């Protein structure tokens, strides 16, 4: 990935600010237009309402895309998954191991924040716990059982965290609460645990 700048604390801060600025740029014109229309031509209030709905929907759609990175790809409970789950369990400590068993997501503390790893994506809770970055990243072998896919991401992350964040494709950066609303209950539990750890690091 020589064409992509290597991830760093400063680069992640900059990316987060750019993402927020981009969202504001997409949203504010609809709000302003809604207000102006309502003031100048009250009869167009329904149109203003549509514009406000549009302004609300844009960040929601982005957050929805971000939340998808933690969605399980397929239910696999066969022998291979049991073997893979055993190996993944050996790689993580006691607390994260219980979290994996309950939620299917692995929690890993890094220098850039607290990571949640799923089968085909990763979510980084930044220090302080308020912002999350959602990444699409996966191992290029569809035959692997889910826990092996998570173990691949875990080992790649541990080997080179900045490289991991560079290779992964950013699908969302924004407020943790926005992503949380879009997650299933087990993933919410994992995100809350990651958020609590990220707040402690602040």
């Amino acid at each position, binding site marked *: 990935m020589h064409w992509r700048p290597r991830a760093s604390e400063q680069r992640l801060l900059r990316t987060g600010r750019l993402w927020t600025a981009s969202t504001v740029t997409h949203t504010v014109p609809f709000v302003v237009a809604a207000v102006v229309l309502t003031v100048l031509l009250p009869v167009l209030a329904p149109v203003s309402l549509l514009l406000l709905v549009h302004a609300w929907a844009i960040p929601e759609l982005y957050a929805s895309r971000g939340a998808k990175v933690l969605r399980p790809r397929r239910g696999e409970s066969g*022998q291979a998954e049991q073997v*893979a*789950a055993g190996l993944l369990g050996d790689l993580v400590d006691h607390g994260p191991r219980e979290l994996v068993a309950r939620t299917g997501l692995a929690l890993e503390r*890094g220098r850039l924040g607290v990571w949640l790893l799923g089968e*085909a994506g990763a979510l980084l809770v930044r220090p302080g716990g308020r912002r999350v970055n959602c990444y699409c990243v996966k*191992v290029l072998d569809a035959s692997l059982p889910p826990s092996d896919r998570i*173990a691949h991401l875990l080992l790649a992350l541990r080997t080179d965290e900045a490289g991991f964040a560079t290779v*992964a494709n950013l699908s969302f950066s924004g407020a943790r609460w926005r992503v949380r609303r879009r997650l299933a209950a087990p993933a919410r539990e994992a995100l809350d645990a990651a958020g609590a750890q990220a707040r402690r690091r602040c």
Partner: protein
Amino acid sequence: MSRLVRMDATGHTTVAEWTLDDPPAVEAAVRAFRAELENGYFAVVSEGEGQAEQVRELPVDASLVILRRPIAGG
């Protein structure tokens, strides 16, 4: 007993096992290790939370060496 395992469709497969006082087993493990790297696998030694090292020669004193595939942005 040290192990070289490959993550694959079966969960994982033990590719080689060796002990330091068994030179033929070590040699076989080194050969298997090199063959897996030539097949595109990366070898990693996990050192606990937040730490792992990618290796290009078999660390014969490691208890567990894991072979993984490359990752890519989705």
